[in-house]
């Protein structure tokens, strides 16, 4: 009985094995997702797992017995399988459990784990109780992203076009500060901006405090624990994520294009605006995503550099989840944060999007 099966396996064409490979990958992925997200539980989960294991065994059998063509068609799916299953359980399934808990409520006051009950009021609470935190998160992250472009673009430009043989050294210098711990770097800013610290002293000596007070950067002679300090911390901590992608896109630019523009009587600034900037848009795009997304969810800078009136949504999620154990509302906030960011990214990529994001 085995012989005809083996011969059929040997005669599989490349494209049908490709179909089998893809289906197998998706099937096993969904099975693990189902178990991880607890769509199924108990004995059924066991059955699903056994079925998934059978698919894997069948897949391996095919790969061993099949023709070279089959083997070739199956190998990418085989290579993808372990990593994909890992991501199915530990990335996709958690998003599902997050959504589920965001719609759950505690049956009694003393229940540790909330039960699912279509509790949409969690989302209402997320908006009504934490609206300012949402606003601040996106406002601060937006300003910080704009600042990283303003500070980072010239740095990337100088490294790319004037670095010469020191380019790699300069790039190294951009990265080195970020080999110290994120928290320690942020805490270092508390020393710099402290009331008796050097920044305030320098500003006082230069008599710039008045100007900064006027600009609302300083408040009552203080630099630390102000919104400006939080934004400054975010800007600092995410600056290399802006510099590096911009550098990568600037470095690819053929300098002769700029020369050509100037040969055609374009002024230097016009050549910059019409040639260099458009060609570096992919870098700015990638840098914006790499800066804005983590900045919007950050709570470390607001914690160390801010005050109770500068908390961001990250602080609230962290507080509700880990201190109040209010999992449903915290999950609802997380989910809203992700949804808003996804929508923003989609809109943003419509305008500036490029193919080579990754």
């Amino acid at each position, binding site marked *: 009985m085995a012989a005809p099966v083996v011969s059929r396996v040997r005669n599989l064409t490349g494209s049908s094995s490709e179909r089998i490979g*893809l289906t197998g990958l998706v099937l096993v992925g969904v099975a693990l997702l189902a178990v991880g997200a607890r769509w199924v539980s108990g004995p059924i989960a066991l059955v699903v797992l056994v079925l998934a294991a059978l698919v894997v065994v069948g897949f391996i059998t095919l790969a061993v017995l099949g023709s070279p063509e089959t083997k070739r068609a199956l190998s990418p799916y085989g*290579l993808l399988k372990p990593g*994909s299953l*890992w991501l199915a359980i530990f990335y996709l399934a958690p998003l599902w459990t997050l959504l589920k808990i965001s719609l759950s409520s505690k049956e009694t006051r003393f229940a540790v784990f909330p039960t699912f009950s279509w509790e949409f009021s969690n989302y209402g609470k997320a908006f009504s109780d934490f609206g300012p935190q949402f606003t601040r998160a996106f406002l601060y992250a937006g300003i910080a992203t704009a600042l990283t472009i303003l500070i980072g673009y010239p740095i990337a430009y*100088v490294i790319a076009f004037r670095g010469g043989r020191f380019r790699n050294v300069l790039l190294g210098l951009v990265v080195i500060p970020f080999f110290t711990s994120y928290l320690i770097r942020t805490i270092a800013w508390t020393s710099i901006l*402290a009331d008796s610290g050097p920044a305030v002293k320098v500003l006082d000596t230069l008599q710039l405090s008045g100007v900064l007070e006027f600009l609302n950067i300083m408040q009552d002679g203080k630099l630390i624990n102000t919104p400006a300090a939080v934004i400054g911390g975010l800007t600092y901590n995410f*600056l290399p994520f802006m510099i590096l992608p911009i550098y990568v896109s600037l470095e690819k630019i053929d300098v002769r294009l700029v020369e050509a523009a100037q040969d055609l009587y374009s002024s230097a600034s016009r050549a910059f605006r019409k040639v260099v900037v458009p060609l570096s848009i992919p870098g700015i795009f990638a840098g914006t*995503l790499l800066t804005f*997304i983590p900045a919007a969810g950050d709570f470390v800078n607001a914690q160390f550099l801010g005050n109770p009136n500068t908390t961001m949504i990250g602080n609230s999620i962290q507080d509700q989840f880990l201190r109040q154990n209010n999992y449903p509302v915290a999950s609802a906030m997380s989910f809203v*944060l992700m949804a808003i960011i996804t929508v923003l990214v989609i809109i943003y990529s419509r305008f500036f999007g490029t193919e080579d994001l990754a």
Partner: protein
Amino acid sequence: MSVMTKRGRAGRAALNLFAAFGFLYLFLPIAFIVAFSFNDPQGKFNIVWSKFTLDNWKEPFSDRGLTDAFVTSLQIAAVSTLIATVLGSMIAIALSRYRFKGSAAYNFFLVLPLTTPEIVLGSSLATLFLGQSVVDFGFTTIVIAHAMFQVSFVALTVRARIRGFDWTLEQAAQDLGASPVRTFWKVTFPLILPGILAASLLAFALSLDDFIITFFNAGSTLTFPLQIFGAARVQLPPQINVLATVILVVTVAIMGTGSFMGERRRRRLGQTA
């Protein structure tokens, strides 16, 4: 470049000056971290400069909690990086070596974990672990959390590094009678190994420094960043700065050696080619 006007030259100088200030800004907190490792703080918080001392460097490991947490962090990073490097490299090879159905969708899927805010990754993973009894929050859940985002990171980095790889080398080896397995280990693997190593080093650094995702999935286990965060409410001993300085020097040394070796390797290959 064409003829330089006076204004052009001034603009050039201004831009260079701006960049120089930019670098100053990048290194300002680092200078503070290193300087404050020589501070003799008054009180429990090493935030205000008081006077110079070498005492902190005489006993860099005197804060047991900090040292233990650092060892835990190293262990977690080692395990999670190993998992992520194997899984991520396999994905990278599949994506750059083969053309297959669904690869575009897969690329998109792979970027997703890196474009999700850390706080969402952390809290969602915590909800996965909350209602089950297979693993408790602790070492294992932190390893899983780190390896989760490292897989995508390693896959994308390795794929970028091996983009220009000449896959016909494999055909050449097989034409000469090597089996596919032998071809992989004798030809492909040695050539893509530098890319894999570079990606795993970066992934290791990401794990070591991760705070937000870890914070949600740690239980009572303390990693280095968690220990600092917890301590920061009651005290900030100068040993934090000493350890940070040591880590900085060691990573810069590793980075420097790595790029030196890479340069030498390139030069050697360039000469033989």
